[in-house]
């Protein structure tokens, strides 16, 4: 069975919305959190975890009906799932396909966990900047206080 057939069997196509594919195994719940999808979400949501993937070995997929996605959300997803592809679906057709890219510097998205970091001092004109030190597994380093984060990164992603 090919990967494509496998996907068709397990996940129904959607009419309008987004399909986020090639999410690293186990990261689908984090992607839902970034999209702000919780128990109050009323549209159709499908997600699959641990699906066989040629490139990733195993992957997760998320499909959300009647939902768009903005650049800020795409940038956040790139941190959690740097291999992900975003498909925008209109009338059952993929009208836009975008591969997320993990930039060299992540600007204004992550709150530095170090309370002594200058980025956590309100008076200064400063935006948090994290430099990608290593991609897999991901290690980020604060440009200012040099604190490194490698696990639980989702908890440091700012809500807005």
């Amino acid at each position, binding site marked *: 069975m090919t990967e494509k057939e496998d996907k068709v069997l397990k996940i129904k196509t959607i009419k309008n919305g987004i399909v986020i594919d090639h999410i690293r195994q186990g990261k689908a719940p984090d992607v839902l959190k970034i999209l702000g999808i919780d128990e109050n979400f009323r549209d159709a949501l499908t997600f699959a975890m641990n699906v066989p993937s040629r490139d990733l070995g195993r992957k997760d997929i998320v499909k959300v009906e009647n939902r768009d996605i903005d650049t800020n959300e795409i940038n956040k997803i790139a941190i959690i799932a740097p291999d992900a592809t975003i498909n925008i679906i209109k009338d059952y057709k993929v009208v836009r396909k975008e591969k997320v890219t993990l930039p060299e510097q992540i600007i204004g998205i992550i709150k530095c966990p170090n309370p002594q970091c*200058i980025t956590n001092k309100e008076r200064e004109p*400063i935006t948090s900047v994290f430099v990608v030190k290593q991609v897999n597994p991901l290690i980020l380093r604060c440009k200012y*206080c040099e604190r490194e984060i490698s696990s639980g990164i989702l908890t440091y992603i700012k809500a807005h």
Partner: protein
Amino acid sequence: MKWTKKHIISINDFSRDEIDFVLEKSGILEKKLSSSRTSSLMAGKILANLFFEPSTRTRMSFEAAMKRLGGITIGFDHPGISSEVKGETIADTVRIVSGYADVIVIRHPVEGSARLASEYSDVPIINGGDGANQHPTQTLLDLYTIKKEFKKIDGLDICIVGDLKYGRTVHSLTNSLENYDVRIRFISPQELRAPRQIVKSLSNRGIEVKETTKLNLKNSDVIYVTRIQKERFPDPQEYERVKGAFILNLNSLEGIRDNAIIMHPLPRVSEISTDIDSTKHARYFEQAKNGIPVRMALLCLVCDIKF
């Protein structure tokens, strides 16, 4: 090598070539100092010392370095007299002072403050210590002391003793040693072991790292000692128990290599007994003195002064 760095913020910004270049240039200025106590390389230039927290040695050392280069210094060494107490941001203070001076040294308790300062300054910024984060000129003078003694850094056995968990100088020194082919032995109480991230990073670079809680100084070329601070221990009794096991005295030097040197970023409290001061191994006072040529070299390099 062509020097391109405008600011000195973190030792992690330095390549091995850049570190070696600073050490070589520091040597040139130390030789100059030994023949003539002053020079005019920085004549007419102004250094602003912005010390938002008290410091004696770092501030005086930069001041002495600038004055020996023929320059002058301005600034403050107590936050009470800076505009910060009136609510001014670091960014604004630095913008203003960069209009007064040719180079700025900043010490501030908030981590990352020096990097921020460099983004708002038209003139070079040198980090004189930003909280628990970085103190790059200390690391460079540590490396200079080692290289001056052994004429090399590669191939040395370096043992680092004391508070390896919180010690800023230890973290910066070990980060810089990743550039060299050394063997490192960490000696500390269990509670103050080096962060796993540091040990892993050294190992990834192929550096042999050993960790122990026993004060065994044998087979080391460099013995780098740091202070164990009482406030790191929730239980004062535990501190008293641990502290005693990491005090260097004449007995601890038994069997160490003949040419081994003992270093310490200072100030020391009781971790090196004073009877070691007169042994041939003590280098901590010379190490502090080496701060002058190293800081002279850095001031000249960032101000694009040829020497």
